[in-house]
């Protein structure tokens, strides 16, 4: 392996660095700490299991939640509007790994006025790596907060995201661009 900077660069920077701690991550005090860290690193899947996904990581949950708040509907009222059960709306909003039935996606797409294909890209098991979709989801998630009614910023975030989904053509295809 080759360093991305040379030793002259390192000397100049180190000379100007303050005398300061630089420790990060796990606390290492003995060899056993190193072993524990490497054991965990060798099993990344185990780490996945203990990190619960958040609503912000589940764009469909966020979209449903924000739309419902925008329209000032309870879960029961929203379920009635999109002709699905209350339990399903609750599951979509609260379980980031829940994958709704195709009919629910269809009805939801009709209500939000976006193509159903675009909503499929928001499912937890969608294989999308589309950068433009990721960016739109991130902006949308960043604009939201759990207040009782939508702020102007949240409303704009929701509108932008719905507009993006309406124009989104790729469905679940991925091209990485």
């Amino acid at each position, binding site marked *: *392996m080759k360093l991305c900077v040379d030793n002259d660069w390192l000397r100049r920077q180190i000379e100007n660095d303050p005398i300061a701690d630089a420790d990060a991550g796990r606390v290492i005090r003995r*060899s056993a700490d190193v072993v524990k860290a490497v054991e965990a*690193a060798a099993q990344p899947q185990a780490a996945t299991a203990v990190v619960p996904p958040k609503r912000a990581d589940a764009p469909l949950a966020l979209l449903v939640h924000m739309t419902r708040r925008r329209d000032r509907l309870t879960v029961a009222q929203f379920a009635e509007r999109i002709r699905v059960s209350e339990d399903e709306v609750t599951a979509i909003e609260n379980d980031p790994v829940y994958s709704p039935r195709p009919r629910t996606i269809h009805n939801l797409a009709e209500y939000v006025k976006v193509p159903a294909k675009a909503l499929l890209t928001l499912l937890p098991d969608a294989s999308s790596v589309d950068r433009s979709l990721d960016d739109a989801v991130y902006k949308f998630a960043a604009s939201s907060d759990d207040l009782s009614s939508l702020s102007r910023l949240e409303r704009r975030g929701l509108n932008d995201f719905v507009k993006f989904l309406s124009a989104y053509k790729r469905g679940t295809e991925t091209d990485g661009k």
Partner: protein
Amino acid sequence: MKETIGTVPLFDLNRSAHCNASLFQGVDLDTIKGIEADWTPVFNAAAPQNQPEDAHWEWAAKALQALRNPLSYELFGIEADAKTQGMMLVLKGGPKCFSRHPEHPRAPLVYLDFLATAPWNRPGLTATPIYKGVGRVLFMTAVSVSIEEEFAGRIGLHSLPGAEAFYRNRLKMTDMGEDAAYQNLRYFELSETQVKQLIAARP
């Protein structure tokens, strides 16, 4: 298992001069033994409740040998005066290796699982640290790994409280705030733009 990458500079604070150290990749029995023999007693002196149980280094070395997996992580260390001056474990894959930075959300990055400097180099533990630069060299090694992995130098880490100023002010990383999922340590990222600025930086 342990391979020397090259000679890197450190700053000897007693002599006020640069000196040479060895940067290596991987770990061997001597490194593990050295951490137990040299680091642990100093930490134990600072925190007496943390006493050693037995010769941990022996089983630790064996365990590390069995766990070698260069696809998911890399271990690095710096040696000077025949002692390990610092160690770092970087992850190249797994749930922590995705960016949270608004510049490139979910882009892959190298995550610093730990960056640890020897207790005698830590101003938080000793009034007269011996070497300066261990953290800087190890951090730039992580950036190099990230570039080699085609992650454009992107780095993520959770800073220990005493090191936040170093990552925020000297390395110009983005402070993404406290992470409730990681003992409320502050999470920092070096974005692609920041990588370029860092490498181009003049002191």
